[in-house]
C-alpha cells in the first residue's frame, strides 16, 4: 500500500488530538502482540500501524476498515510500556471520521436511534409483558425534553 502523507490532515490530527499522549509511542509493537484482533490476522488490525498513520498524517486511516475493527477491549492499553491510551486515540479518530461523514452506516444509525428514543433498544410490548410477569417496575419514562436539547447539540 502506497502511503500518502497529507500535511493538512497531519495538522488536523495534531490540533484535535493534542491532549492525547500518542507521541510517546516508540513503535515497539507490544500493543499488537496483545491484541486479539491482530492475533486473528495482522491484516485486520495493527494498533501500532494506526498510531503511525495518525502521527505522520495518512488520511486513509479514517476510512480503511482497521480503525473500525478495534473492540476497545483495552488489552493493549494495559500493556503499553509508554502508557499510550490507544482506545482514546481510536475514539478521537472515529469522532473525526464521524464528523466528516465517513463513519460506517451502522454507527450513524445508532446515534440516530439514541437521539430518537434515548436508548439503543426499544421497549416492545412483549418486554413490557415479561417485565410485568416478573414483577418489575415499568421501564419507560418521558425523556422528550432532554432528547430535544441533545438533538440541538448534535446538529
Amino acid at each position, binding site marked *: 500500500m502506497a502511503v500518502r502523507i497529507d500535511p493538512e490532515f497531519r495538522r488536523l490530527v495534531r490540533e484535535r488530538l493534542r491532549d492525547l499522549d500518542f507521541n510517546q509511542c516508540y513503535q515497539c509493537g507490544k500493543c499488537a502482540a496483545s491484541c*486479539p*484482533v491482530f492475533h*486473528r490476522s495482522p491484516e*485486520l488490525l495493527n494498533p501500532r500501524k494506526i498510531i503511525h498513520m495518525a502521527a505522520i498524517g495518512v488520511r486513509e486511516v479514517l476510512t480503511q*476498515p482497521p480503525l*473500525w*475493527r*478495534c*473492540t*476497545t*477491549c*483495552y*488489552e493493549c*492499553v*494495559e*500493556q503499553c510500556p509508554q502508557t499510550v*491510551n490507544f*482506545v482514546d486515540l*481510536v*475514539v*478521537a479518530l*472515529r*469522532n473525526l471520521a*464521524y464528523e466528516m461523514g465517513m*463513519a*460506517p452506516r*451502522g*454507527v*450513524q444509525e*445508532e*446515534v440516530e436511534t*439514541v*437521539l430518537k428514543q*434515548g*436508548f*439503543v*433498544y*426499544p*421497549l*416492545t410490548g*412483549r*418486554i413490557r*409483558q*415479561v*417485565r410485568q*410477569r*416478573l*414483577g*418489575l*417496575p415499568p*421501564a419507560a*419514562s418521558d*425523556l422528550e*425534553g*432532554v*432528547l430535544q*436539547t*441533545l438533538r440541538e*447539540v*448534535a446538529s
Partner: protein
Amino acid sequence: MSAHVLYPGCLISRRYPGFEAAARFVAKKLGMELVDREGFTCCPDPVWLRSARQDLWLRMAARNLAVAAGQNGDAGSLVALCNGCFETLNTALHLLKTDQKQREQVARFLESQGQTLSTCLQVKHLVQVVYETLGPEELKKHLVRPLEGLTLATHPGCHLTRPSDIARFDDPLNPRALDELVEALGARVLDYPTKSQCCGLPVFVTDRELSLSLAAEKIRAVAQADGLVVTCPSCFQQFETVQMLDRSLPRVPVFYYFELLALALGADPGEIGLDQHRIKADAVLARLGHAKSSAHGVSGARGTKPN
C-alpha cells in the same frame, strides 16, 4: 449495607429483564437496599456512541450521574448491572473530575436541564459490590441451594476490569474475582487461557465475521463446561447469538452471574426469567433439581436480532 442507586441499563431492562429480576432478588436476599430513580437514559453505549460523538456521550452520561445523585446530591454509589454501563458511567465520571474544559461545558448543559453536575458518587458494578462488601466466604453463608456438581467457565468481560485505572477492580490481565464468586456457589471453575479475551460484540456493527469469530473461539475454548458465566448482557447476547448462527459450535448455555446466585439463594427459574434464554439451560437446571423452566414461558419472538 448502605443504600445504592440502581442503574438498570437499556439492554437489561429492555431485552433481558430477567437479569434485572435476578439482581433485585439477590439484593433483597443479601439485605442490600437498591434505590430506583426516575428518568435515566441509555448510559450511553461506551463503544459506538462515544466513537461517533464523544460530546453527546459525555452529556448523557453526566445527566445520568445527576439523576442518580438526586435532589440532595447525597447518593453514595450508583450500581450498574452491565459492564458497558459500568465503563461509560465510570469513564465519564473520571473525565468530569479531571478535564476542566469538558466539565464546564457539561455543567452548562445540565443547568439548561435544571440539573446540577455531580461527581461525588462512586460508580460500581454489582459484581464488585458483592465481592467487596461481602466477599466469597461471606456469600457462602447465605446459600440455600448451592450449585454442586457443575463445572462452569467464566468470561468476566473486558470492561469489568479494564481500563484498570478507571475500573479499579480485580487484575485486568488475569481476573480472578468472578472465578471466586462462582466457586463460592459450589461449582467448579474451568480454567482456560483466553479467559480475559473480548467476546467480540462491539465490532458486530462494523465487521460481523470478525465479531462472531472472536466469540466462536471462546465458545470452543469452553466446550467442556456446563455453562459460561458472564457479568454483562452484551457478552451474553454475543455468546448466544454465535451459537444460534453457527450450528457447528458446541452448545454451551450462557448464564448471567446473578441468575446463578439467585438460584443458589433459592429463586425459582421462572421468577428470574430463565425460560427466556435462546440457548436453553434446561439440562443444567434439571441437574440442579429444577423442573423444566418453559412452563413459565411467554411465547413469541425471542429477540433473535443480534444487536
